[in-house]
């Protein structure tokens, strides 16, 4: 499955990319699986996801939890806790 990954704030800075299109292994089922897989892609990813509980995710522009399934997702975003307002 091909999906666009987008990164924001310090997640973006640590990974060094704003977005990328990746082919995901079929065995990845949840957001949490994807985080574990990403963290193994290199030092910059390991740094971004060193504390996976802190990083938040959205699928197709809606907040999701680590146990949310990723099947059918077109865009998955990762970012720190939000600090707007």
């Amino acid at each position, binding site marked *: 499955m091909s999906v666009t990954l987008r990164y*924001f*704030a310090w997640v973006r800075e640590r990974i060094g990319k704003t977005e990328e299109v990746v082919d995901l292994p079929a065995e990845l089922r949840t957001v949490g699986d994807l985080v574990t897989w990403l963290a193994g892609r290199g030092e910059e990813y390991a740094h971004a996801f060193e504390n996976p509980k802190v990083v938040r995710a*959205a699928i197709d*522009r809606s907040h999701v939890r680590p146990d949310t399934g990723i099947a059918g997702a077109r865009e998955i975003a990762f*970012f720190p806790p*939000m600090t*707007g*307002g």
Partner: protein
Amino acid sequence: MSPRHESLRKAATVTIRLQREDFDAGAEAAQIARNRTDVGAVVTFAGICRDHEAGHGVAALTLEHYPGMAEEEIARHVAEAQARWPLLGVTVIHRYGRLVPGDNIVLVVTAAAHREAAFAAAAFLMDYLKTRAPFWKQEQRPDGAAWVDAKEADDAAAERWDRPSERDAAE
């Protein structure tokens, strides 16, 4: 409510904008009740960039956002506020980009027939903007740039709206 009054009811005036440009809080507050006479209460909240935070100076703020999701997430919370309170108008404007102390950051204006709904909805929307809208602040401090950490107090403020007692009290 009489049938005649019912027939004159106007749809709520909803405005959501994300922009680099400044906004005029007074003009936005006046606009929300323009061309309607059913509004009895307007609450305006403006968030402003300040020059200090937790003991250090702040020379500037840079606000990053997730285009597309930010608008959708704000719209979801405006709809939720409209479901909870009888609002006649809601305006949310959130700026992004580089801001310096004294600059406007965010504006929430709520209009209702009575003040309780307007006050509660404005607080609800601000609490959710702080914790759920995809914006991130980076501060320019004397020792360099640093991303602002999320505050537990903000999470607690947002979570209070999920408690049944708050919902009942607000209705």
